[in-house]
């Protein structure tokens, strides 16, 4: 019983420390600045951005694709590891679920920002055509938000009941909220059956829905007949890319949470080692699809596509292209192949590089293609043939990233980041295993 109390003490949410307060305040300030820029964008129109006739999609869309990709972490780590009965997943899944929820919510918000006037979202429903991947996207994103929330919520129920009891004396207000959210969880057999059944259904369902989400995201590009996007390889290319972005984000957040919440005895080096192997696998698959995506066109490309490839390989975007390919993909593979590279600290840096690389990778996918249409647009100023985000775009984009981090921070603050009940059950099982062997 003493161990159980210690477990709850270790894993129950704690108030922000000094760093937590500074961090949250910083995020709020960034969000406010971004919000002011967004209001200004609504007031003046998208003329405040650097998007013009050529680059009609810019940083907002690459940011949206990044969020969609990152949300895939819920499907891969939680669902796949659950269905393959990998018990080491336990301390990691909730953080993955939290990242998934934050990323997919922000993906939805980002696409609204790109529409300039938010009321235009209605047009997507009023004029929806089921042939259009944009309509599929409009359907799949809310669907994935609901699934991600359910995937986070169902396993939380026993923990919310525990926290209800735990905070009864310490903080009755908080306890009441946990009690309300725990849906009268008593751990009865009927409740457990319903909960386990539901989690199993979600775990199965989120995999095809997650793949659908990434596929639709890829089809948004590949169904438009444009250089660099017109590829049958695009959907698996996006799925594998999402695998990399998701695991990269998970490793980074886990490292910080583990350090801040002092969870070293729960999230061990062994977890990082396994996540490292998972990331190597993800990077290798993504590298394979990258080779497919860029090597074959160098043999078969016609003039327009060759110009585009030259821009990427040796031209204007070469530095960025090679940085995201080598820095964000090849280097992580090389480092993580060694056991020392899979230790927590190197893993944190690798995770961070992978996330930054993933973000810029989406920029490299979106922007150069738009600047190389099959038919040059007549009578436009020379400056429209180039694109780099404006200050408004940067402020708003950074604010969306800060909002995602704020959602993660608040959820990490108020929810047990490691499932309490499940950890207790597993430790109990371990004990019974040991006692039965002896």
């Amino acid at each position, binding site marked *: 019983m003493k161990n159980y109390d210690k477990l709850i003490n270790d894993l129950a949410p704690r108030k922000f420390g000094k760093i937590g307060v500074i961090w949250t305040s910083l995020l709020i300030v960034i969000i406010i600045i971004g919000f002011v820029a967004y209001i200004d964008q609504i007031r003046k129109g998208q003329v405040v951005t650097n998007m013009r006739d050529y680059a009609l999609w810019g940083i907002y869309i690459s940011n949206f694709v990044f969020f969609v990709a990152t949300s895939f972490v819920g499907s891969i780590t939680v669902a796949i590891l659950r269905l393959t009965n990998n018990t080491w997943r336990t301390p990691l899944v909730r953080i993955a679920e939290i990242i998934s929820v934050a990323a997919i919510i922000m993906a939805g918000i980002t696409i609204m920002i790109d529409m300039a006037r938010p009321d235009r979202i209605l047009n997507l429903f009023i*004029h*929806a*055509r*089921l*042939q259009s991947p944009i309509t*599929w996207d409009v*359907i799949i994103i809310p*669907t994935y938000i*609901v*699934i991600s929330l*359910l995937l986070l*919520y*169902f396993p939380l*129920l026993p923990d919310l009941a525990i926290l209800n009891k735990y905070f009864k004396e310490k903080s009755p207000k908080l306890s009441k909220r946990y009690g309300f959210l725990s*849906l*009268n*969880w*008593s751990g*009865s057999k*009927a*409740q457990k059956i*319903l*909960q386990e*059944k*539901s989690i199993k*259904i*979600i775990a199965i*369902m989120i995999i095809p*829905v997650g793949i*659908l989400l990434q596929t639709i995201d890829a089809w948004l590009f590949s169904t438009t007949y444009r250089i660099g996007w017109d590829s049958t390889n695009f959907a698996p290319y996006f799925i594998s890319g999402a695998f990399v972005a998701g695991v990269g984000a998970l490793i980074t957040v886990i490292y910080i949470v583990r350090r801040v919440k002092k969870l070293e005895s729960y999230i061990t080096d062994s977890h990082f080692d396994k996540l490292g192997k998972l990331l190597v696998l993800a990077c290798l698959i993504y590298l394979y699809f990258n080779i497919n995506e860029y090597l074959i066109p160098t043999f078969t490309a016609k003039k327009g596509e060759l110009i585009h490839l030259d821009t990427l390989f040796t031209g204007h975007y070469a530095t960025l292209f090679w940085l995201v390919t080598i820095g964000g993909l090849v280097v992580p593979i090389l480092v993580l192949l060694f056991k020392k590279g899979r230790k927590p600290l190197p893993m944190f840096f690798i995770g961070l590089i992978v996330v930054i690389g993933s973000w810029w990778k989406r920029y490299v996918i979106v922007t150069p293609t738009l600047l190389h249409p099959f038919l040059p647009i007549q009578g436009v100023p020379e400056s429209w043939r180039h694109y780099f985000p404006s200050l408004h775009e940067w402020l708003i984009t950074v604010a969306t990233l800060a909002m995602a981090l704020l959602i993660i921070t608040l959820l990490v603050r108020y929810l047990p980041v490691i499932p309490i009940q499940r950890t207790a059950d597993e430790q109990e099982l371990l004990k019974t295993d040991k006692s039965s062997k002896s």
Partner: protein
Amino acid sequence: MKNRKKLFIISFVLLGVFLISAGFHDVYGQAKKNKVRLKADYVKIMDGEVYLDIKATSKIEKQNVKVPNIEVTIYNEFNDEEIELGSIITNMKGASKFVIKDLSDIKADSTNIYNIVLSFKGNDSFKKASKSISFKDAEIKANLITKDSINYITATLIDKSKDSVVVGEPLDVQVQRLFRSFKIGEEFNNTDESGTIIVPIEEGIPGVDGNLTIEVVLNDHDEFGTVKALVSAPVGTPIVDESTFDQRTMWSPRNKTPIFILIFTNLLIIGIWSILIYLIINLFKISKSKI
């Protein structure tokens, strides 16, 4: 010193001339009116409209420009009398069409010539102008005939003022097309002694449902103006409509979504959302089943 004085006087005179000319420029500009040139072509379409094709132009700064928004009145000149037929206002291209509802409404002189006068009263920018045109009434009788499996267009040009056929005048035979008519037959098809031409219609000319509209035209004739007869000839090759406008395609509007997309997408949406609703119901069930 003398030279300096001369230079001063010359400069003063030049400056004076420049200032005076600049000062009067506006007044002179306002007083100057441009000439309007009126042009009218008489056009008669058999069993259709009879009209005057009116154009107004002006030479301003050595350039021919179209004159829009001027009112031109049309008169029928008869026995030194001018009977007003109506008026038109030119459009932005300086053109307009005056439809003569019935040719019998206007009077011809003793030689059966119709005399029409166009008159513009003038305005702040343009001087008054007028233009007279004369024409005789003519008629084209056109028919489609088939001889030895070959289709022909025959047409006879008749001078209605004398009720006699017109010999040796060129008639154009052409198939109506969207932008410009497509000429068939010889370059010149002159009417013979009986005032008739006969032109074979080539095979394989495409037409909607195989229907061709063939025009026989007497073009801008000095006496008769333009006379046009239209013949419907179902002798063309039917156009195979390759448009997917009415089909259910991936690029059609939402009311023409392909059936497989409708079924597949809706099944997916209904399937996934049924499960989600079931899961949400499970949450309610959990909250109700304490024991």
